[in-house]
């Protein structure tokens, strides 16, 4: 009797269910999109000094703040552009005092105080974000450039994260 050949059946192709993986990946993308600051050109990556008494920036505050970053090398960066207030580097980089003069001209001036005939005070506020290890001389140069242009509202950036032992 002829043996009947058994038909060899291939198992159906295994189909892994990708749905949970895609869910997780989408959740990760949404998380990174929310927490990331992609194009913040005004703020450089710096190690700021610690100050637990520093104020938190108020969201929606009307005043405009010019972020001045003092890099560990002493170079000043404003909107990713390098400047200097160091007389020894005056030819190499644009002069900070001239930049602040132009910047302050775009803001209103407050009425001068009686008996003080100098440059009327500017409404511009400058936030100095200096690296914690940078020499104070470079911060002084920013202060000096501000004072010469009547900018009196300044602040020093600091981190509130507790430094670890």
């Amino acid at each position, binding site marked *: 009797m002829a043996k009947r050949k058994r038909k060899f059946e291939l198992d159906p192709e295994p189909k892994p269910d990708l749905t949970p993986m895609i869910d997780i990946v989408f959740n990760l993308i949404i998380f990174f999109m929310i927490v990331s600051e992609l194009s913040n050109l005004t703020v450089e990556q710096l190690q700021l000094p*610690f100050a637990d008494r*520093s104020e938190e920036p108020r969201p929606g505050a009307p005043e405009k703040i010019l972020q001045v970053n003092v890099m560990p090398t002493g170079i000043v960066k404003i909107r990713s552009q390098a400047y200097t207030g160091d007389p020894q580097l005056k030819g190499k980089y644009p002069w900070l005092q001239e930049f602040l003069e132009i910047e302050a001209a775009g803001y209103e001036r407050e009425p001068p105080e009686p008996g003080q005939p100098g440059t009327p005070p500017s409404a511009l506020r400058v936030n100095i974000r200096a690296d*914690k290890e940078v020499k104070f001389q470079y911060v002084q140069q920013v202060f000096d450039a501000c004072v010469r242009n009547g900018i009196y509202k300044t602040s*020093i950036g600091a*981190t509130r*994260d507790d*430094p670890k*032992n």
Partner: protein
Amino acid sequence: MARRRKKLILEDPNLDITPMIDIVFNLLIFFMCATKFKTTEGFIMCFLPKNRGQGSGTPTIDLNEVRIKLLWYGDDGKPTNGDAGYVVVKIGDENYNDPGHFERDLRSTVPEKSPVWTAIHDKLNAFKAGYKGKSDKGLPVIIDARKQVPTKYIVSVLNEVVRAGIQDVTFAAPEIEY
């Protein structure tokens, strides 16, 4: 004649999701690399003198002012203009640390947490309580730091000044070298 029924074959639509997964993974890698986590960044206000531009008048001096000096000492224990050195914090003639204290302090390897700042805070509170000047803003404090001092020490002093509730803070002008 019986009509033969046609068998209805349902086709399983095969959606190829490989390109979508590729793009999604690329997006994920991009966001992971480009992410800078927001840090808790704050600021300390420091108002500079108004009207000190060209042709300004002479500022008045309050004799009750407190001057916090951040000096720069060399290895020999004397003030130096060199890049290598140590910070010494002084109020009046009183030293708050010895040269190299912040670097040697075994209780805390972080200078920002040094007990020096607590001592300065207590001293400022004592000055504030005993202030007899006439300024509306209260006790005037001047922070006088040498140019070589790292900014973190100036911010630590400023932090203690703010903690003591002092409103009139000024930074001394840099020394003019001859």
